[in-house]
């Protein structure tokens, strides 16, 4: 292992690596992202390793443990190359058969192929899976190609080519111009133009400047930053090095959520490897430019994702935001000019440098360029991470990529942007997803959370859920956020418990306007969004809770009752056995009865009933 001392040396190393990769030797990638690991992917890996070691195979097979491919729903995922054969829900026991049938005899194993939920047809290759077909996986695509801990893998797919180009051909000014021309906007939520941010830091006086990567990912339903850090850490690091070169920074930080141990581990490995090879540290690739990166583990506070709070946290203080009349680009970390960008923003930078601003600005809409990664969850067939060009409609996302709503239910709305975002009703499903259009609809891009709701999701409950999250995470420094959130939550709690009054709705709007106007940071100003949008688009559902004391979706515990459908119940006794409060009685093979007074509404009976005989009203 030796330091690479010049761009030419790096190119030479890459050429050797690429030529080594260009063999027909079969290779198998096994997704070991968090989702697949939880479904047993590590067992699949060990099964492959064992089989390869023990069986004395007469072919040479390479296995590659990769980061998240995005399609967690079907995990563990295995892709076999050449051929791009896609197997899903693979188990330990399947491996021997895969080696024998597919790798040696080139035959497909029917049982492991993915079945398209709409057409019911079997799909052979990864490229043909509808979940992937409509995506444009600029950032996520490489997750499935490389071993995140192997620098050579990243170099082999063209990694650090952009850094090379920057050091050889571009001045800092030119880099900034290129990023400005690309139209790249911050992926952390607010969508501030990245080039302009860099430019103001470039112009700011100071011999010491910092760049920071925001990997605090606090949205309670998002994991895209995590999956990039776990699956392709060098892409983020390369982006940071280029950014540091552009603004002339010598020191960078990455602030990672403490709950992401694998991301911390893989990123540390990436930093070490990059240092060993002279891609990070003193005199990068033999140039006069030096830069290094340190990892800070977050302390578990959502507000620390906010830029000024994050900076305070790195400085060893409690993470409270400050008013932003002075920008971080002028006075940030330790009062020095600081550029802070999101993980996805950094990871996009090398692509733009490599392929040009023009290429990038051709993707997306007029004001929102490039791709966005959403974590598509909730009541949708294909959950997982999806990366799409900006401007795609919600409908395409939910029905084509997401494969529609399970169980033939109707879609009701989609919540975008996590706790700061809003709820978009079915009638607006043709909305193209870009920064401006989402704000017009009362929501925001945010971190890219996307929750699909069907008729059985209660919008009041969801708004209450998000507000209880933001209220709990409020740092308490400013009153509108601290007290406003608390009062609004108690009103919503009352409504979901059937104790609401109609005038409460006006009070909610009034509190919301104070929070919007008066809060110190976007945590407070955005917190009312989920409530306001649901109130705007689903007033009837609120009124049903207030006037009729009913939860139409059958979610709010205090407002629902369980019944047994006497026609459908065949007296199998399954519910009777699980009921913890002995509320269900009846003889075998006769319809059972449910005593409302004893029922604690735990829902255990609905889970076990096979005849849809338990009704919720």
């Amino acid at each position: 292992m030796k330091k690479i001392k010049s761009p030419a040396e790096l190119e030479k190393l890459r050429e050797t690596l690429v030529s080594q990769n260009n063999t027909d030797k079969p290779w198998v990638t096994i997704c070991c992202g968090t989702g697949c690991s939880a479904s047993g992917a590590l067992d699949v890996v060990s099964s492959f390793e064992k089989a390869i070691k023990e069986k004395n195979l007469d072919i040479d097979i390479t296995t590659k443990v990769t980061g998240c491919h995005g399609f967690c729903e079907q995990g563990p995922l295995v892709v076999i190359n050449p051929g791009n054969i896609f197997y899903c829900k693979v188990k330990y026991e399947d491996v021997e058969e895969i080696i024998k049938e597919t790798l040696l005899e080139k035959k497909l194993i029917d049982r492991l192929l993915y079945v398209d939920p709409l057409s019911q047809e079997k799909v052979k290759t990864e490229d043909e899976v509808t979940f992937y077909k409509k995506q444009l996986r600029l950032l996520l695509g490489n997750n499935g190609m490389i071993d995140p801990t192997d620098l050579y893998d990243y170099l082999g797919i063209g990694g650090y080519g952009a850094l090379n180009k920057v050091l050889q051909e571009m001045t800092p000014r030119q880099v900034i111009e290129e990023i400005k021309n690309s139209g790249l906007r911050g992926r952390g939520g607010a969508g501030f133009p990245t080039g302009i941010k860099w430019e103001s830091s470039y112009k700011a006086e100071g011999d010491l400047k910092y760049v920071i990567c925001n990997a605090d990912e606090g949205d309670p339903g998002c994991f895209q930053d995590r999956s990039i850090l776990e699956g392709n850490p060098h892409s983020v690091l390369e982006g940071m090095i280029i950014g540091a070169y552009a603004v002339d920074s010598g020191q960078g930080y990455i602030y990672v959520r403490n709950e992401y141990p694998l991301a911390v581990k893989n990123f540390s490995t990436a930093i070490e490897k990059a240092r060993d090879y002279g891609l990070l540290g003193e005199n990068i690739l033999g140039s006069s430019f030096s830069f290094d990166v340190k990892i800070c583990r977050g302390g578990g506070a959502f507000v620390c994702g906010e830029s000024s709070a994050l900076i305070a946290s790195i400085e060893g203080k409690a993470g409270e935001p400050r008013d932003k009349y002075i920008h971080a680009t002028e006075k940030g970390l330790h009062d020095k000019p600081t550029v802070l960008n999101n993980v996805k923003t950094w990871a996009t930078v090398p692509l733009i440098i490599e392929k040009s601003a023009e290429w990038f600005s051709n993707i997306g809409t007029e004001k929102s360029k490039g791709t966005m990664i959403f974590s598509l969850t909730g009541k949708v067939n294909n959950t997982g991470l999806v990366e799409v060009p900006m401007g795609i409609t919600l409908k395409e996302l939910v029905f084509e990529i997401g494969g529609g709503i399970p169980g033939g239910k109707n879609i009701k709305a989609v919540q975008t942007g996590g706790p700061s975002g809003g709820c978009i009703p079915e009638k607006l499903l043709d909305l193209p997803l870009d920064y401006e259009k989402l704000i017009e609809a009362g929501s925001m891009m945010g971190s890219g959370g996307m929750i699909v709701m069907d008729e059985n999701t209660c919008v009041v409950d969801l708004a209450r859920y998000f507000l209880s999250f933001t209220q709990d995470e409020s740092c308490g420094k400013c009153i509108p956020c601290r007290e406003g959130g608390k009062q609004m939550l108690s009103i919503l709690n009352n409504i979901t418990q059937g104790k609401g009054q109609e005038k409460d709705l006006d009070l909610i709007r009034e509190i919301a306007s104070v929070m919007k106007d008066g809060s110190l940071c976007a945590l407070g100003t955005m917190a009312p969004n989920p409530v306001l949008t649901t109130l705007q688009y689903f007033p009837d559902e609120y009124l049903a809770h207030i006037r009729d004391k009913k939860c139409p979706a059958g979610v709010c515990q205090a407002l629902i009752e369980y019944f047994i459908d006497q026609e459908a119940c065949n007296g199998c006794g399954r519910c009777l056995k699980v009921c913890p409060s002995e509320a269900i009685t009846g003889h075998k093979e006769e319809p059972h009865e449910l005593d409302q007074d004893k029922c604690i509404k735990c829902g255990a009976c609905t889970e076990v009933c096979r005849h849809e005989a338990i009704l919720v009203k």
Partner: protein
Amino acid sequence: MNVDLGKVDKLIDKYRDEEAAYIPLLQDINSEFRYLPRDALKRVSQKMEVPLSHLFRLATFYKSFSLVPRGEHEIQVCMGTACHVRGAPRVLNKITQQFQIYPGETTADQKFTVETVNCVGACALGPLVVFDGKYFGHLNLSRTDKLLEGYHEENKKSS
């Protein structure tokens, strides 16, 4: 509870030369002792020359710190959005009822700590629980029951 201050000193030495590295230091102490013992904080305050009040401020501000000892086993119930819409509150209810504690608390025998976390990155498997770092997905009430039963059994054997 007696705290091995030698261990604390070793951790302090790791961060001596870094500017204001209180948070990573407290994180290390917290994972070493499974909480932040009072004596350890006092030691940090003396050696790093930082007011004890500042350390307490950090300890109470950030969620990853605990001022009371935590249980041997950690049960984290994901309350992220995806898990929430798929019924995580019911799973949480079940678990807290079973152990007779509120989320964030530890059982009297110091065996189990139950807490809620946000998205752990496996939404497709929700609702889910992370039990000592291991993921258990697609939970419903009966599967939760089975999961807890297994651990109770194991616990009885080991103690």
